[in-house]
């Protein structure tokens, strides 16, 4: 069983990993948005 400090360290690692995942989603979202904008510009041309 983990003691208090280990549990805190494990939680910290998990939270940082989740933040990294969220950052990836955000980047992918930006990609979708700019991709969509480019597609719209191309359509207009």
């Amino acid at each position, binding site marked *: 069983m983990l003691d208090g400090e280990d549990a*805190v360290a494990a*939680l*910290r690692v998990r*939270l*940082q990993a*989740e*933040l990294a*995942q*969220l950052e990836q*989603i*955000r980047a*992918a*979202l930006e990609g*979708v*948005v700019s*991709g*969509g904008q480019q*597609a719209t510009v191309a359509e207009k041309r």
Partner: protein
Amino acid sequence: MDTTPTMLGALLQQLEPLLTTTAAAQRVHALADRLMRTTLNVAVLGHFKRGKSTLVNALVGYPVLPMGMVPLTAIVTYVEAGPAFSAAITFQDGHTAVVPIEQLREYITETENPANAKRVAAAVVQVPTARLPHGIRLVDTPGIGSTYVHNTAIAREFVADADVALFVLSVDPPMSAEERAFLEEVARFARRLLIVLNKIDRYSPADVADVITFTRKVVADRVPACPILPVSALLALEGRIAGDAARIEQSGIQAIEQFLVQEVYQAREALLVSAAVNQLHMLVSEAEQQRQATLAGLATSREELTRRLDVFRQRVAELDVLREERDALLRVAQARLVDQYLGSALPTLRAELLALANQLPALIMEGSERSLRAQVRAGGHWIVETLRSTTVAWMQREEPALLDVLGAITERYRAALQRALDALQALAQDVLAVPALQVQVPEPVPVTAHARLQVVDEPVMLELLSMWLMSHLPGRIGRWLILWRAQRRLEDYADRMVGSARYALRQWIAEQLEERRAVLESAVSAVLEALT
């Protein structure tokens, strides 16, 4: 083929396990579903009694949703085109029941499902109509701002699912501060927003134009380009049912239908993508903030966390102390109102009652010897009835002015509460990293009950009858004496009436303020419950 909706759907799926609240997970689920089916939620939102259900009925051309004078819609109700009339009720435990359309009101109205005792999550109504294009669902929501706080909560919760919003106002009363705040909240989510100014049939075109100008000014800094369309939903619905083209034309509904086709239906895919991108941004930010706050918490020592929690608890306790202060202030305002207002107003009632004595000579001095007994009886009856009805009428005339004063008192009280709540929420955000709830203290609904005059029957008639004996005095002397006594009795009775009116108005003022206080304090309780 455009793959943007598919990609957004995939991102929503990735995000789902990272969300920490069930509400957020449900939002994501519902949005993914809308993206997949290319179906937009066009939410009809607004204060209670603005005619939201009537507007939905007018747009589909059938009175499928219950309409009424009191706050009625209690449950989010989706209305879409379908092969036949049907109503599907989804309950909070997840099961769904299909019921005859006539039974819809048993599930979605406050009167027949009070405080949602039947645990309904939502209702989906299908209507065989060509007026509503496939891919658009009109969503009727409970009105905000009524005494039913749970209705407001359901409506606010739904705002995040509104891809497009029809925000319903009415000509009278014009847009309130609470409606403006709600509109701002709606504008954060809805990708297209239309302000519908309802009930125009009750006012002149000049009044309607004034209210449109006023509304445009009020919303200018927040949603400057938002169109405002005047309508009479009731006239439109009547016109649709009767097939009366003139009424439909006059109602203004066609401009809203045109908006729905041109601005919403034809752009529905782009609107859905925009709604999904907007939601994803917000949800990712929320999830990030929550993790960062927890990480910051981990970096803080246990002593520091305990200290912050203590500060917070102390402030919550202070809010309770402030509640006592607010109550005391309210009692002072109430006492002042009773003293000052009634002190200056009641003498006018007394004067009005005493002036009635001028009519006594005609009742008593004329007539034959034989009719005197009947005259005395009628005179006594007249004093009791006339003074009582005059007092009741006077009280009713005074009520509007008193309501104005009560409104001003309550507004000060409401503002004080709002400041206290804002301070507490700001503290919760600073100290505990709890996101601000931005709870608005509701504006209480004026209570319409009238003051009740309670009078113990006075033996005026008997006393006067006992004077009949005096009629045996010679000539007109007996009548003069009876008149003199009747005038004294009228004066006594007038004083009693003034006392009764004072008591009745005092009780009424106390009841009115208590009702308002209860509505306002319920907002504080809601915040404390959410924060602690």
